Structure formats: C-alpha cells, structure tokens
C-alpha cells in the first residue's frame, strides 16, 4: 500500500508550494496523454525518475507499483500488438481473423504503440506518489483551495485520502476477527468460498466505514464546517523562487509539448 500519510516524509520537494507540485503533476499527466510516441514518453519517464531521485523517495516503491500493474501492462501490450492498425508488417502470425479485426500480421507500429501505452501508464502511476508523499494533506488541501477548488470538495477529498490507512487497518482487524472465528480460507480455498469470505470481510468494513463517516459528518458540522462565511486558513503558503522556476518550466513544457504535437511530432 502506498503510504498516504498525514505526516508526509520530509524531502527536498516538501519546501515547494502545493500548487506548484499539483500543476507540475498535471503537466506531466497531460503530456503523457498528448504524446503517443514511446521516445517522447520515455523522455517524460526520465524526467519523473530524476525528480524521484531528487526527492529521495524509496526505489522499492516503484518496484512495488510496477509489480502491481504488471498483469495490466501485459494485457495492454498484447491487445495493442494485435489490434493496432499498423502498416509495417514484421511477421505473419496466422491468417486474417476477420471477426476480431486481426490482420494476421504483427506490425512495428503495433509494438511501438503497445510500448507507448505501457510507458504512459507507468509515468502516470509513479508521478502521483511524487505529490502525495511529499505534501502533507493540509498543504494539499490548501493548494486545491487556492486553485479555486471549493473548500468543501477539497476537504472531503483530502479527508477521504487520510481515511485510506484507517480503512486498511480496519480490514486487517476484521480479517483477524474472521480468522479467530475459524474462517481461514482467505488465501487458500476454492473461488466460491473465497468470494463468500471476501463478502464477509467487506460487509462489516463498509458498515463500519459508513458509521464512521456519519459520525465524522456530525463531528465536522459541530465545528461549523460549511459555515456560510469566508473561511480563515491558519496554514499559510507562499511561492518561493524555485516555485516560480518550476511553474515557468511547466508552462513552457506544456506549451512546447502541445505545439510539437500540433506540428505532428510525438506521435507514431
């Protein structure tokens, strides 16, 4: 589990304003979606990994994320290789299979596009922790509010994020409780039993989370959450020179990327 923690770790990226990080993240997201050439996306990946190194985040986390998405990546790769309407035939696999739209040939474009799609997924997956792990939730919330996201929405979003670890620990406790009652086939057992056990795990989890969120609602309203006045923020944030540099770079990258794309670069 990615450690979305309220007290995010201290890293060189912590000094940046939440808005800067959010905008840089969105830029990389957009560029990853704009380009479809594996070389360009590889460039983005290099940028993200460099930032990862600067932030001194653990490399093991990347490994874990990649492991988690391995199967999805393989599926994407295979699907693109088979179905991308490429022109440069590399070799013939079978006769044309009309009803699934497969020409029978593996094409260069298919392989390239498959790789691009997988790289795109990787970039998107590993860029998120760069923000999440270097930005304490209140700073993240403040950034959203300063970017004109309504406070209520920003608060609910960040609170949901902060509840993730507690949901996780709930599920561990419930699993323990089920184990104590002799329900042991979480890991082993046939599919049907597995499904039944999982349902038995989910019901108390969802009920518990629901009750929690209802008392949370009461607790928040009792402290004037949603009062129809302009809210004060104790937390303050200011742009420092590095923020401005990064923001300018992000805007240049974004404009440059879109311009390249319009001129026909960065695609297959």
């Amino acid at each position: 589990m990615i450690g979305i923690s309220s007290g995010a770790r201290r890293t060189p990226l912590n000094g940046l304003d939440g808005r800067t990080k959010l905008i840089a993240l969105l830029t990389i997201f957009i560029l990853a979606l704009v380009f479809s050439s594996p070389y360009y996306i590889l460039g983005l990946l290099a940028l993200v990994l460099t930032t990862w190194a600067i932030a001194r985040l653990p490399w093991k986390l990347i490994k874990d994320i990649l492991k988690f998405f391995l199967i999805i990546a393989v599926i994407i790769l295979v699907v693109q290789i088979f179905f991308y309407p490429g022109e440069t035939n590399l070799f013939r696999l079978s006769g044309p299979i009309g009803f699934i739209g497969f020409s029978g040939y593996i094409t260069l474009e298919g392989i390239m596009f498959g790789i691009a799609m997988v790289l795109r997924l990787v970039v998107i997956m590993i860029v998120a922790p760069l923000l999440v792990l270097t930005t304490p939730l209140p700073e993240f919330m403040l950034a959203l509010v300063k970017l004109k996201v309504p406070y209520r929405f920003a608060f609910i979003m960040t609170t949901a994020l902060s509840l993730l670890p507690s949901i996780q620990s709930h599920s561990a406790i419930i699993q323990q409780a089920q184990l104590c009652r002799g329900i042991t086939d979480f890991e082993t057992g046939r599919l049907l039993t597995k499904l039944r056990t999982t349902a038995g795990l989910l019901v108390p989890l969802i009920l518990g989370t629901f009750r929690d969120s209802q008392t949370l609602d009461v607790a928040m309203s009792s402290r004037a959450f949603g009062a129809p006045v302009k809210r004060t923020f104790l937390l303050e944030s200011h742009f420092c020179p590095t923020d401005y540099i990064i923001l300018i770079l992000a805007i240049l990258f974004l404009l440059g990327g879109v311009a390249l794309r319009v001129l026909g670069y960065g695609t297959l």
Partner: protein
Amino acid sequence: MEPIIQFNSVTYSYPRTDVPAIRDISFEVDAGEFVALIGPTGAGKSTLCYCFNGSVPQLFSGAMTGTVEVAGCNTYQDEIPVLAQHVGLVVQNARTQLFNVTVLQEVGFGCENLGLPRNVILERVQAALAFVGLSGHEEREPSALSGGQQQRVAIACVLAMDPDVLVLDEPTSELDPIGSEQVMEVIARMNSELGKTIFLVTHDMEFVAKYATRTLVLSDHRLIKDGPPEEIFSNNALLDEARIRPPQVCEVSLGLRKRGYLIPHIPLTMNEAVSTIKGLNHA
C-alpha cells in the same frame, strides 16, 4: 430568566426504523447547571445529544416531532454551523472527531470555519489548550496522543468556539482512571470557572455523584427520572429499571439501610459516607 435548553415532547426515529430512538422527551435546563444523563446502552443517549445542535434531524434524516431550543436557537430552523457557536458537541468516540494533522489545526478548525481573524483564532487555541492542560502540544499529531489527551483535545476544539452549552457524550468511557479523572476535572472547571452549562452523558456514577447538580435517567428511549443525584441513587426500583449501579458509597449505605439501620440521607461522597457510618456507631 429563560431556560438555556428546552426540549418539548421530542420524539425521533432514525430512517428505516420503526421504533423511535427517543420518545416524548421534555426537560429544561437553566444556564450554569451541570446535568448528567445516565442510562443503559441503546437507551438513546447519543441520539439525544445529536438533538442539541441540530445534527438530528438535519444530518440524520428520519422523523422528528417536538421542538428543541438551545440558547435562543431552534434546531429545525438554524443551521448547524450557527448552532455550533452556542452549543459544543463532543461526540461519543473522540477519535473520529480528530481529523487534522496537528493539535493546533485541530483546535483551530472550528474558528477557521467561522472565519475569525487569524490572531483571534491563535489566541483562542492557546487559551483552550491551556485550559485543558495541553499547552505545548500544538505541533503534536492528535492520533499520536494518549486517549485522555485526545479527549481533552476534543474538548478544547469545541471550547475554542466559545459556546454557552457543552454536550459531552461518554467522554471517559474508554479511558483509564487517571485519564478519566483529568477529563472530568476539565469538565467540572468549565462549569465552575467559565460558567458553561454542562450536559454530560456518562456511565461513571462516582463522577455523577461528585459533580452533577441534576441527573436525568433515560431508559428504553424514555426519560424516566429527573432529579438530584442523591434522589436517584437512593431509589432502588429506579436503579434496577435503568440497570444503573450506584456509586459504591451509596451501595454500602443502601445495604445498611436494608438491614434496618436508620439512614435518612444516602451519602454521595466518601466523606459524607464516613460521617454517616460514624454516626451509626454512636447511635
């Protein structure tokens, strides 16, 4: 003077339930009183607490009849943020009440929402933390505090908004004796030093005997008794009906009375009990 709290025949059922969680509740509380609400689990104590600031019926939908007025506000008409400035609610499980990253932000949260000026908020937070004995803990993470400290932070959170009435739902039920004592001492001082009206739900009869000036007994969703603690703790039938175990000093005196000793007033505190029993020996 107008009572600060007025419940008029309040009946409320949660959505999708047939049985009302509280039934025909009527009582009044004057400013400055220290009222304890006692009764078995499931009687409807927490539900009653939710009525004070409009959480019932505004957040929990469901069917409510009757009216609740607190500090001149009406819980149907006035919105919860408005009510929150007059009545502070500390919910049953204080941990769900703490969702900020530092104690400072936690305690400042209510005043931030009210849009108070920054320096006013900081002053109020300092004062509230000092009052509950947690000065210097501003940068701590609430979830890393002890249970008793968390409970006191939760109290500071509503205290910082400076309400006239404080409603506290079982604030000591999960605490060790020392933690409980500290929390109860804070609650008592809010009443005696700050003049706040206290409405306290608790299972700790020793505390009720020691601090409350008045006790309400809720059993089976109804208010079955309203009177001073000594009246309740000397009423055996009532204690049985509401499944309440009185403080041990009362139990001893009740036991002695059963055996034929003449005890006109059931003592509430250890000192009173000692002199009562000493009096018996002399007789």
